[in-house]
């Protein structure tokens, strides 16, 4: 079950911040979902392979050739901040 420390770890993995006043409610909701998941322990799944694909299809491969055209200008036109064909973010290395 999730406690305060684990909530911080999960939030960090998920890159989400949880407001201090919402912390208890979040822990309660997440634990209720995990409670639901504990029903799975009732089932014997020894020797049952995990289901990787609903139709058991294998990954289709394609020839290793360029099929996309350069649309970087179009794609960057919707970005929050760009410059010199790069996506701009706050300085990472001072």
């Amino acid at each position, binding site marked *: 079950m999730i406690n305060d420390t684990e909530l911080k770890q999960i939030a960090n*993995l998920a890159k*989400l911040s949880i407001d201090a006043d919402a912390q208890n409610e979040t822990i309660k909701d997440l634990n209720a979902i995990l409670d639901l998941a504990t029903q799975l322990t009732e089932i014997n799944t020894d020797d049952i*392979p995990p289901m990787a694909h609903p139709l058991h299809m294998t990954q289709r491969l394609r020839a290793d050739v360029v099929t996309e055209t350069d649309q970087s200008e179009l794609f960057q036109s919707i970005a*929050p901040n760009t410059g010199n064909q790069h996506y701009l973010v*706050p300085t990472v290395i001072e």
Partner: protein
Amino acid sequence: MHTKTIAELAQGLKNKDFSSVELTQHYLDRIKASDLNAFITITDELALQQAKSADEKIAKGEAGKLTGIPYAHKDIFCTKGVKTSAGSKMLDNFIAPYDATVSHKLNQSGLVMLGKSNMDEFAMGSSNENSFYGAVKNPWNTSKVPGGSSGGSAAAVAGGLSSFATGTDTGGSIRQPASLCGITGLKPTYGRISRYGMIAYASSLDQAGPMTKTAEDAAIVLNAMAGFDAKDSTASEQDVPDYTANLNDAINGLTIGLPKEFFADGLEDAVATEVMNAVKEFEAMGAIIKEISLPNSAYAIPTYYIVAPCECSSNLSRMDGVRYGYRCDNPKNLEDLYLRSRSEGFGAEVKRRIMIGAYALSAGYYDAYYLKAQKTRHLISNDFKKAFTEVDVIMGPVSPTTAFDLGSFKDPVSMYLADIYTLSANLAGLPAMSIPAGFSQKMPVGLQLIGNYWSEPKLLNIAHQFQQQTDYHAQMP
């Protein structure tokens, strides 16, 4: 005009009873006068342009079956040059730079897009109350939910705001709103319709499909949506038949399986009565009824609510405030940019599912949750394999209740439990439908049909035959 089916509208356009521009304007007027909140974006200018061009094609005799028909497109499908929000603040400013394959195919069919329909944020929800753009109201009773996640699509069709709509179904998001709004909804076999440009929630479960007034309309629209797509690595290469070809086949001798688990505790009596009345109707049409068992179906809820969040935590990691979508103001550093963009951009339910997924996939918990759920998924799928050696189609309820009041579910888990009858078909990848089957206290009740892989022609045939004998599908609020 808004009471007509696609088939009837196409005939009206062909006979020049009305033009596509007139038809489109009629729907746009109805949308603007409506208070259902079924649309996030109304594309009136584009719609009238498309209608004008459709009228030109009709005049030249170049029209296809769908040319000039107005529809609502779920706001999860990318539409080039038009906002595609997925019901989220995160994508409120996202103008898609390309068309989803489904959008492209529907454009090619000469359809007229009225707008983008409202939905639960990133398709996560069963009531459409999780939309950044506000809840959608059920046209049968505006104090009730339309279902979700394709709630705007269902409300638009049921409320006569659109001739049909597109939807997507990851755990019941086409069938449950179709049931709650009294329309026909089809979730095809996994891989039947391309997922390219359909904003991903849980990729191994997501499947698009039509939401229509009738089974015949669903067949017409599925013809336009289905097919292989090299841009989706999970799209099937299976041939696409003409889905309208078998609608009139006789169904006497059809074997219908009723899973006893679908009629156990939790199902509202009035819903059970309507569903059983529909089954009796099939019996009168010559079908054979057989009780079957899907012993692992009760585990569909915990299985789904592990598998889907795991996939969503991975899929939604791309929403980081860097390349598109919402970015927080004045980020202090890169970490702050990620944290605040995501925390301010996502709603509560999306955050919950991302965190459950991140937890279930993390070191030390992967085997206990994700791997266990994927194994259980196999057992659920095996139950269906066994059932389809005995019966042609499985029938049961779609939802344990009719549409519930807006705001009536306070905690997430209690709403998850209402997905009990729809989740299994997604976990197994099977095609399934909801068709109008009656009313309880003036609210629609849906009947669920689950078929074997690629049995869409059979499902549509069964549904069409039922609709020849009943008029639940023809009733409007």
